[in-house]
């Protein structure tokens, strides 16, 4: 359902898949600390049959299975990183909504800081060049301009 509405933001209507938000009362763990960790992990994992929905938001059966799986792993004593590793081993990198840094994602992760760096360097260079120009004395008038100025001044004082 989220997908359908979102597509309307750009006005494409797809075949609707319906959800009433995801996590169901019967899935939740009794231990509030573990449950909070499970929710946090769920938000970082993609429901692979949905479009850009985390398993925390999706009501697809697969998302339900994954939520249960995450909770099982947590109850078995896995750390957050271990749970993520387990899921990546099973389903591939595609399951992570925040891709890990690797050669394949170097451009993805590198572009924002890279652009900021390049932009800053360009600006510093431009500022230095401008400072140079600002300190130069303004070019004086050419002989021709000087003559015109005299003429204008003479005219206006004469009027």
């Amino acid at each position: 359902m989220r997908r359908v509405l979102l597509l309307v933001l750009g006005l494409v209507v797809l075949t609707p898949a319906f959800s009433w938000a995801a996590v169901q009362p019967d899935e939740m763990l009794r231990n509030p600390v573990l449950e909070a960790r499970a929710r946090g992990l769920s938000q970082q994992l993609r429901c692979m049959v949905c479009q850009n929905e985390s398993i925390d938001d999706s009501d697809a059966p697969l998302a339900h299975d994954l939520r249960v799986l995450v909770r099982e792993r947590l109850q078995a004593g896995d750390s957050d990183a271990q749970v993520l590793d387990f899921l990546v081993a099973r389903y591939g990198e595609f399951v992570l909504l925040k891709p890990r840094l690797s050669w394949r994602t170097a451009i993805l992760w590198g572009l924002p800081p890279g652009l900021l760096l390049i932009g800053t360097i360009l600006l510093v260079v431009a500022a230095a060049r401008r400072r140079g120009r600002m300190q130069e004395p303004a070019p004086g008038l050419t002989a021709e301009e000087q003559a015109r100025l005299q003429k204008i001044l003479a005219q206006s004082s004469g009027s």
Partner: protein
Amino acid sequence: MTAELGHYALMLALGLALIQGTMPIVGTRTNDAVLMSMAAPTALAQFAFVAMAFAALAICYVTSDFSVLNVFENSNSQMPFIYRLTSIWGNHEGSMMLWVLILTFFGALVAVFGNNGPIVLKANALAVQAWIAAAFHLFILMTSNPFVRIPQAPFEGRDLNPILQDPGLAFHPPLLYLGYVGFSIAFSFAIAALLEGRIDAAWARWVRPWVLGAWMCLTVGIAGGSYWAYYTLGWGGFWFWDPVENASLMPWLAGTALLHSAVVMEKRGALKIWTILLAILTFSLSLIGTFLVRSGVLTSVHTFATDPMRGVFILAILVVFIGGALALYGWRAPMLKQGGLFAPISREGALVFNNLFLTTACASVFIGTLYPLALEALSGEKISVGPPFFNATFGPLFIPLMVVMPFGPLMGWKRGDLLGAAQRLLAAAILAALAMTAAFALEQGGPALAPFGVGVAIFVMAGAITDIAERTLFLRVPLRAVWRRAIGLPRSAWGTAFAHFGLGMTLLGIVAATAWGSERIAEMKVGDNLDIAHYRVTFTGLFSRQGPNYHDVIGRFIVRRMNGDLIGVMEPSRRSFPTRNMTTTEAALMTRGVSQLYLSLGDPTQTGNVAMRLYFKPLVLLIWLGAAIMFTGGALSLSDRRLRVGAPQPAKAKAALRPAG
């Protein structure tokens, strides 16, 4: 007959667009004033014909003419009038019609109101506008014709997707399109200036009102869509970093940068080349957004490959317009003269900082949205880029921007006084520090960064007020004088303060609602209580109600304060639409100040219990109220005398008549 008339009108509009796209340009080349003056009337006529085509489609929808395929697929005679009307743009073909309607509308506006600039610039700009229009008319006629008939007309239509049967559909798409199609004007003016090879500070003055208008519409368009998603989706999320949302956010970011760099260009004649580039990029991002949502490439790279007609067509439009514009820019830009010197610490410097961070933020949204598509298309590998990525890249770029924001308006042009600005912002900084401390002290759990976010938001808001207080000499002269100065301030100064204040509000709302919202998910039976924040919600039963084309199952919940005072009743429902056999969730919202209680219903179980989700969203309304304030800021700035009057005209004619001496 109506549909055929509409189809014909659209073809005529294409013809007019071709005339409008060529004759004025020939005129500017041959210095023929008659050909140049053709631009305005053809722009008006083109708009008239597109409006006629749109009206024809509207009549088909309103009269439920199911012999038209598009109407049959997206409408139903049982729907209320308003939804029959809005379902025009609730589908691909109709929304493209809205796109060209708005595009030609802006062309017509330029034809009527764009008289304060040189005629050559206007003629060229309208011609460029016509090329864009021609491309999209052709796209509709060849791949997305909404006027196709069905040989044997069915009796009833398939109905509009129930999720779209919402007042949101009436406002959100038109506003969004007014925004990102509106940036086409800046694009056309930029290309026109490049064609002519002359750009001066006055260019920024002619273009700024158009950019501002488009930016205002886009701001409320995005905010409106966000609120719509918030109340419809059943769990109170307001932003998902979905590609479709990103498609509208990117032009907003670039447009905001453009708005600021155009100020520098207008006032100081600096950043000309950069401003022109931004004008091109902003509309290019609008086109890319259109491509993303229209081509089907988002659904899957493979869908795109199996039914490529539409996608390839828009891709061709993209390549021609963006590629062409950038090539023209690359050729002409070096010939333009740079002007306006300034020190790094100055108003210009602050605006350059703004531009650096906004464009980088925009680039990070861009790469995050397109990288997975590109990677899959090139190597077949699939990765996901979702909210955690955007939060990790966009956030760190936006926060410095907001911290620096209050300094900008307090700095002088050319050479600013950072220490002086900092001193004047001392009160704002103290306020922000207090808010941060208070948030930190009151926080029970919750992310550590949240109080910092609150501090930044308060700093931005207080900074905006400081700017106005400084300009009116508040506390330094008698109140009466302050009042006089406040009235005398240029509207654009008020506009800046409002827009900045609004952004601070939005940030505050986002931080509070995400960090300190609470959630209860439970299965309830009649008589059960659920406590959230300082409220107690009691389930009193289910009942049902019949609507015009749907059936509601409604849960009734009584909300009390913890001490037992009755506050009100919330009635969320499950709404089923028999025509499409679909069910939607209608959440119930209860507004408490600027916070909200949010309740949505799951399916009733066999035992008569209901699963329900209850949220308390502190300060959540600030997110959208902030956008409304930003819009107001834009409107104030738009009403500034300077923009309305336009560039001063040389009074040569009069002077010549006066006897000399």
